[in-house]
């Protein structure tokens, strides 16, 4: 290069036109390829990606909302089930209580019935015994009396009334004794 030193150097502030033209030509080529081919191509993909991401986010949000609603539904169902279980339990308790009360009442009633039947039986037996005793006592007494007296008193109603009166007196005494007890 030094051999050029003999000449006057070109002023570095003055552009040489062929260089300007080459520079602009290069720029024009780059601009043309970028504007017509490369940037539309990449912009399409960038937009697509943007849509995908936005869509993905929306989808995720929708899924979250759905999950939330399902969770709430599940919680509601669970609460309902718990409520139902509690209701059933209390109902069962109630039923159990009434059942026990009923059985108790039934038992009471049966007991009383049995007792009453026993009492009635005892009374009837007592009455029958008293009846038969009365007859037997009457007969025995009459037989005894007739044996003692030697004559039959059977024909005389009066005699029988006497015996009855005597026995009623006995009855009354028994009743009185019971009442005072």
């Amino acid at each position, binding site marked *: *290069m030094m051999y050029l030193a003999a000449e006057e150097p070109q002023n*570095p502030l003055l552009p040489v036109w062929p260089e*300007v033209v080459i520079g602009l030509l290069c*720029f024009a080529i780059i601009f043309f390829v*970028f*504007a017509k*081919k490369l940037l539309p*191509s990449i912009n399409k993909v960038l937009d697509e990606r943007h849509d995908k991401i936005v869509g993905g986010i929306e989808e995720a949000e929708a899924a979250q909302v759905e999950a939330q609603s399902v969770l709430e539904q599940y919680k509601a169902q669970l609460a309902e089930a718990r409520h139902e279980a509690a209701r059933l339990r209390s109902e069962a308790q109630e039923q159990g209580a009434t059942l026990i009360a009923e059985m108790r009442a039934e038992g009471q009633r049966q007991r009383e019935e049995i007792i009453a039947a026993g009492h009635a039986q005892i009374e009837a037996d007592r009455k029958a015994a008293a009846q038969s005793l009365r007859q037997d006592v009457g007969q025995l007494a009459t037989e005894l009396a007739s044996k003692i007296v030697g004559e039959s008193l059977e024909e005389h109603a009066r005699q029988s009334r006497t015996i009855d009166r005597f026995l009623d007196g006995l009855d009354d005494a028994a009743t009185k004794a019971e009442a005072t007890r």
Partner: protein
Amino acid sequence: MSSDQLLAFETDCHLFKDCGFPAPSVWSFLFDPIFSVGPVDFNKPMLLALIGTVVILAFFWAAFSKPKLVPGKFQMVAEILYDFVRNGIARETIGKKGEPFVPFLVSLFFFVWILNLWALIPLAQFPVNSVIAFPVGLALMVWIVYMTVTFKTNGFVGGIRNLCVPSGLPKPIYVILTPIEFVSNIFVRPFTLAVRLFANMFAGHILILIFTIATWYMLGTLLGTVYATASFALTLVLTVFEMFIQALQAYVFTVLTATYLSQALEEAH
């Protein structure tokens, strides 16, 4: 190509040998034509610009021609770069109305950047934007787009108002402000746009040249080698710094373009 054509300075000159420092000069930015077509010389910066174009197109073609919904690593990197310009510059500066200008701004950013990046690539090692023709061409094109958008959006009168009469100020100020705005928007803006990029790359290249040449120049003696080591370390530091400046200047160029367009798109008040 002889060695002094490749390296562009005296290679047999060293410190302590009665030989002056072969400082970089304007000559460092002038190249012999690779070939000539009539009066038109085809030189190294032009070649680098063409290769840069191919590199950008190859990179983005590989990434974006058959894009996938789930990107590979390569497509991901390209997408991040693209998104940086689309959202970080176009949408941030212009807003929703900036969408039609995204291809323009994307092309501008990556073209300016690759032209700057050549400064770091071995054998190329020359920021193409330090040749003023390239920034001038781009700034001129930005200016044409800027003017076109201004007058298309606002009509002729509205366009002039948009360029010269900023709204919402007390009336007397317009006496001073209108000429300033006119000169600023129509003449100064494209000029500074081009010169800012050019001067940054030019200065950066000179700096790296100084320390690279100095490293070589000071080699030879023991003391000189110590100096050379320091100079080389500084070359490395400056190279990293330049990497930053290259991206930054591409960013600044694109953001300013976006700012101009944003102003052009403003509704008349």
